[in-house]
């Protein structure tokens, strides 16, 4: 075995020494090592070798020789890719434009929908205890989110394990007086001391633990505090509520987040009103929301199981038989459609998932555009690919190059999309009824999600073209001419166009269905006359008001009642032991005057309308609707007259039958309804105005009303506007549909436009030859259009059943809805046809008009 110098030293030298010096140094050291081995022995030689190596570790030997020979680095290749990408974009501005715009639109829609969906699914999640907070609701004849005020104290006693039990009592409207200024405020609530422990508000002032404990205290939201007191400190100031309560401001909280089912402008301590409330009766008309927080490991089912015993113990057997209390998880409140009468309308999860689906579809359309244009264009770049391959490019590099270019375009699109989203955010509230803040865009989860969307878009849009383009055979690619017909993927491209057409058509059909349902909501016959009728709170001195209205020349007719046809506040049990219906069912109860039926043009089908009843008249005659008598099993309207029913526990005789009218939104079936005369309940005044001088008449009414009620603020509402409000949700949905299908259509049209223009370029020669041989412009346009018409028809066959299925599902949420007729499908295909024709014809006519001399001379 030959002697070798220590390996570590040799390695060290190899690592540190400049390569151009290495050989001679190593050689010299080796030579000396061998000599020393001979002279002094191996051990000494190794030691000295190591020492000498260490001596060479000085800058002079470490410094590498400057290298001037070309050595391509990764960055050089990248720079080349950028240059080529930049040139391609410049060369084909219109395609780049179409791609970027389409992607930007798609991404913008996608990001926006993502924000909306996130907002929706995160409802009420701002509370730390959200997952174990429940709303106690009552299930009797109906699902009711409000429970009697009697439940809370009893619950507290019988379920001591509940961490918090909080009473919340919503008020639709209240009049606030600060100093001498009066405000009519919508939405406030009474809430007890535990409420701030259940819901985690952000407290700007005051102590959440004590703010709502004492009577006559009020907690304002930031906006309200600013409205009433400006920049001054609101704490300790006095506010007068509804002309009777003097309240001290004990706290200020930040405005509610956009995604909570709660809705209030201020909270008044529950103690303020507790004494006036019915705290014993289970079926009391008064009721509010009751929230409980259960301990970590207690399943709500275990509490619900003990509810029947709880009701029996506190209110007796009878009540326990007909009612159950349910624990509704806090985070489900926003999605639970069983409860329709609540502060904020619930939204079904299907709608939200539907919206998410729309986002996917839109981004898909944008990606399809990209894929189509890129593959159609790939032919143009086949030469480049051929040369790159001939010079030794790996397939992976080519794929990387295409993906890189895609990334470049998508990044540009993302930037535009983010700008568009930022610009659109302020409009989400009025258009979609969802408040989104720009700050949400900066949250890590959102950034991650957007990056995810962008990444997926890059892959969706880039992968297929990358594989097509990198798969070219260099020989074929170099020999092929740019005008040759497409390379690869024609069937794929056709498929994608069909998919795109189908998406567009589904969106159009959807929009049309929503539009007609909207129209049906607002314009369909409600069963009563709603034109030019205003309603307002009667206020004090109804008799004086009656006289004033009678004297007002602008008033055609007026009526006092507990509620107009489109309002329902009163429900009451009814039965008819005589007709064999022993168990109670629920009916609406409207207490009206003699003008009610004629003014609203309610149609009497049998018997007599309501007449005025003198003081002390104890007869109890009622008018009922058709639904009620059907419930009693009476088929002929006239047969019902004179029959006895029990309404609200009292005997009554049916004196007339009125045709069903829509008192609630069309979400629900028309309910049974009882109308009866009761002058004690004329809370609401409805006035039918003459169409002339409407404004003056209203002004006069307001003035007279204000004189009678100097403490209050006059507020009126037109009945048709009130009805439109019932469909607020649907209107927002309609807006969303219009917006997003608009975007989908624009993206689709952009893609089609790009595709046709590419096709026109590729077929320049063919068109030239055809023209020389006598083809007309029309026949050439047809040549281009024919293919697309076919694709469109195939797409329609796919889209129609899909759209029908989806929209039918949606319509079923409404008790009353339109039928999806052939007209809608016809309209949809017509719209797509027109859009496609417009897009295709521009390019094809342009191509057809080119002088054949020019098109054939090239090359």
């Amino acid at each position, binding site marked *: 075995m030959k002697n070798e110098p220590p390996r570590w030293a040799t390695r060290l030298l190899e690592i540190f020494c400049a390569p151009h*010096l290495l*050989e*001679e140094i190593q*050689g*010299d050291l*080796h*030579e000396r090592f061998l000599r020393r081995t001979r002279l002094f022995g191996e051990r000494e030689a190794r030691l000295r070798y190591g020492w*000498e190596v260490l*001596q060479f570790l000085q800058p002079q030997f470490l410094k590498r020789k400057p290298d001037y020979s070309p050595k391509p680095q990764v960055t050089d290749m990248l720079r080349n890719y950028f240059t080529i990408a930049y040139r391609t974009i410049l060369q084909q501005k219109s395609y780049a434009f179409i791609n970027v715009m389409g992607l930007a639109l798609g991404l913008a829609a996608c990001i926006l929908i993502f924000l909306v969906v996130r907002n929706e699914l995160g409802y009420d999640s701002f509370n730390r205890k959200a997952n174990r907070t429940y709303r106690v609701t009552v299930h009797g004849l109906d699902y009711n989110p409000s429970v009697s005020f009697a439940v809370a104290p009893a619950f507290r006693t019988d379920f001591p394990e509940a961490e918090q039990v909080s009473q919340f009592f919503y008020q639709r409207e209240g009049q606030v007086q600060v100093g001498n200024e009066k405000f009519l405020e919508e939405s406030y609530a009474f809430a007890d001391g535990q409420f701030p422990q259940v819901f985690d508000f952000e407290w700007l002032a005051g102590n959440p633990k004590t703010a709502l404990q004492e009577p006559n205290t009020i907690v304002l939201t930031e906006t309200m505090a600013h409205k009433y007191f400006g920049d001054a400190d609101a704490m300790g100031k006095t506010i007068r509520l509804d002309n009777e309560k003097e309240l001290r401001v004990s706290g200020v909280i930040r405005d509610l987040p956009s995604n909570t089912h709660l809705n209030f402008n201020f909270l008044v301590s529950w103690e303020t009103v507790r004494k006036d409330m019915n705290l014993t009766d289970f079926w009391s008309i008064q009721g509010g929301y009751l929230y409980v927080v259960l301990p970590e490991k207690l399943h709500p089912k275990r509490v619900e199981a003990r509810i029947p015993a709880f009701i029996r113990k506190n209110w007796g057997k009878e009540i326990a038989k007909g009612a159950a209390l349910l624990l509704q998880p806090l985070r489900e409140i926003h999605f639970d459609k069983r409860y329709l009468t609540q502060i904020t309308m619930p939204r079904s999860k299907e709608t939200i998932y539907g919206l998410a689906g729309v986002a996917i579809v839109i981004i898909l359309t944008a990606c399809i555009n990209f894929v189509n244009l890129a593959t159609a264009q790939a032919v143009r770049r086949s030469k480049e690919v051929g040369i790159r391959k001939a010079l030794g490019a790996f397939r992976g590099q080519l794929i990387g190059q295409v993906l890189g270019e895609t990334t470049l375009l998508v990044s540009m699109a993302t930037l535009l999309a983010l700008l568009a989203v930022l610009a659109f955010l302020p409009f989400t509230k009025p258009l979609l009824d969802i408040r989104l803040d720009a700050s949400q865009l900066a949250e890590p989860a959102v950034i991650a999600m957007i990056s995810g969307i962008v990444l997926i878009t890059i892959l969706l849009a880039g992968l297929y073209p990358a594989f097509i383009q990198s798969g070219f055979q260099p020989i074929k690619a170099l020999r092929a001419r740019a005008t040759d017909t497409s390379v690869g993927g024609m069937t794929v491209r056709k498929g994608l166009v069909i998919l795109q057409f189908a998406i567009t058509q589904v969106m159009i059909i959807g929009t049309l269905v929503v539009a007609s349902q909207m129209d049906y909501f607002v314009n369909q016959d409600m069963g009563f006359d709603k034109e030019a009728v205003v309603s307002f709170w009667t206020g004090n001195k109804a008799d004086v008001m009656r006289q004033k209205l009678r004297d007002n020349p602008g008033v055609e007719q007026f009526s006092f009642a507990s509620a107009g046809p489109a309002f329902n506040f009163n429900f009451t049990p009814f039965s008819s032991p005589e007709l064999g219906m022993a168990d109670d069912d629920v009916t609406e109860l409207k207490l009206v005057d003699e003008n009610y039926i004629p003014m609203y043009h309610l149609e009497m089908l049998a018997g007599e309308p309501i007449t005025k009843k003198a003081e002390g008249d104890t007869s109890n005659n009622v008018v009922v609707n058709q639904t009620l008598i059907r419930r009693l099993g009476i088929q002929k309207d006239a047969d019902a007259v004179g029959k006895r029913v029990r309404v609200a526990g009292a005997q009554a005789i049916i004196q007339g039958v009125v045709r069903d009218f829509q008192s609630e939104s069309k979400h629900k079936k028309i309910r049974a309804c009882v109308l009866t005369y009761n002058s004690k309940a004329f809370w609401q005044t409805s006035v039918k105005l003459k169409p002339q001088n409407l404004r003056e008449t209203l002004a006069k009414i307001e003035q007279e009303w204000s004189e009678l009620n100097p403490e209050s603020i006059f507020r009126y509402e037109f009945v048709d506007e009130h009805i439109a409000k019932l469909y607020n949700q649907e209107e927002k949905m309609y807006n969303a549909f219009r917006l997003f299908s608009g975007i989908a259509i624009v993206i689709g049209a952009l893609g089609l436009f790009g595709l046709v223009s590419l096709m026109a370029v590729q077929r320049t020669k063919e068109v030239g030859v055809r023209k020389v041989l006598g083809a007309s412009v029309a026949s050439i346009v047809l040549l281009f259009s024919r293919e697309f018409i076919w694709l469109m028809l195939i797409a329609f066959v796919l889209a129609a059943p899909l759209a029908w299925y989806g929209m039918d599902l949606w319509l079923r949420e409404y008790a009353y809805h339109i039928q999806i007729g052939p007209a809608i499908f016809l309209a949809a295909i017509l719209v797509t046809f027109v859009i496609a024709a417009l897009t295709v014809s521009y390019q094809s006519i342009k191509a057809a008009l080119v002088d054949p001399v020019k098109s054939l001379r090239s090359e």
Partner: protein
Amino acid sequence: MRRSYLGEFEEVVLLTVAVLAEGAYGVAITDELDRQTGRAVSISAVHAALHRLEEKGMLKSHLGEATAERGGRRKRLFSVTMLGSRTLHDIRAVREQLWGSISPQGLPAVSL
């Protein structure tokens, strides 16, 4: 005329290269220096001086044959360039001029 400055060690190394003529490479130069001057120089110092001199243009080099005792590595053989030669001559001329100018009393006698 600009004259490249040579350090004392560089001057000695340059002279040694001239002494060794054909066979001037790292190990040989180190050995020769050892023998002629009696001082133990490190091989790294010699290499450093050689390359510095080459950068200054006083030496030129080429790679020689590989030998087994070098582990199959080639040696770098150095030779003095014109510039190197002139520099050495210049230095020598200055020294001789200086020697010639010394009066007998100028230096204490040294017995050799």
